[in-house]
């Protein structure tokens, strides 16, 4: 983390590839919401940011969420604001979707679906991978 801050302060014009990997269901832990907020903040640094949704993380993007019963904020609509923050690279993993019976039509934002091998090579290209 300290390396990341040094680069941002010292290296003007240096753009790194940051990937934020979301692996957890949206509610029950704070990871999904906190992870989303970190991404929104990261947008201010003009870096090359992408978000990945794998495993239960794909549930974060489910359309038509209703959180009334568990009395927490429904932040699923906030994923739709990412575009306005110039974060347009959203990827989901095909096998994670298949295992949960989901298709792109079930998701609240436009995503790129990748198979596991494509996902692995995309991860290998990154300068920084942060996983939640």
């Amino acid at each position, binding site marked *: 983390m300290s390396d990341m801050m040094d680069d941002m302060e010292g290296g003007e014009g240096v753009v790194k590839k940051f990937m934020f990997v979301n692996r957890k269901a949206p509610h029950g832990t704070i990871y999904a919401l906190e992870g989303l907020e970190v991404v929104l903040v990261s947008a201010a640094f003009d870096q090359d940011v992408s978000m990945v949704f794998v495993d239960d993380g794909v549930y974060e993007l489910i359309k038509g969420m209703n959180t009334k019963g568990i009395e927490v904020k429904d932040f699923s609509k906030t994923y739709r604001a990412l575009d306005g*923050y110039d974060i347009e690279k959203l990827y989901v993993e095909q096998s994670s979707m298949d295992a949960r019976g989901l298709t792109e039509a079930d998701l609240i934002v436009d995503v790129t679906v990748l198979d596991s091998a494509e996902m692995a090579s995309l991860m290998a290209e990154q300068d920084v991978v942060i996983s939640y």
Partner: protein
Amino acid sequence: MPMVEVAGKSFEVDEEGYLTNLADWNQDIAGYLAQEEKVEMTDSHWEVVNFLREYYEEYQIAPAVRVLTKAISKKLGAEKGNNKYLYELFPYGPAKQACKIAGLPKPTGCI
């Protein structure tokens, strides 16, 4: 949490004076919060405040200034979607002041 009373109704605010419960918001509390921020509300101010409330309704966050100016530019025109215009209306920062008056939490991604 501190409480403020405006027009016979009590409102809960946080330690920085932001309204705690978005649903409590009305014109009276907005007027009070504006006064606290020393902002004299005109139609132009209300336009931005109402825009922010609509943005929050749609996305469930208060936008960062950069995102706000871009979104305003898109909806209300470039002559309003720029820092100069917004800072003239809200000298201490459109994110901080306009969001507060609109009853929203502090903007995400604002540093």
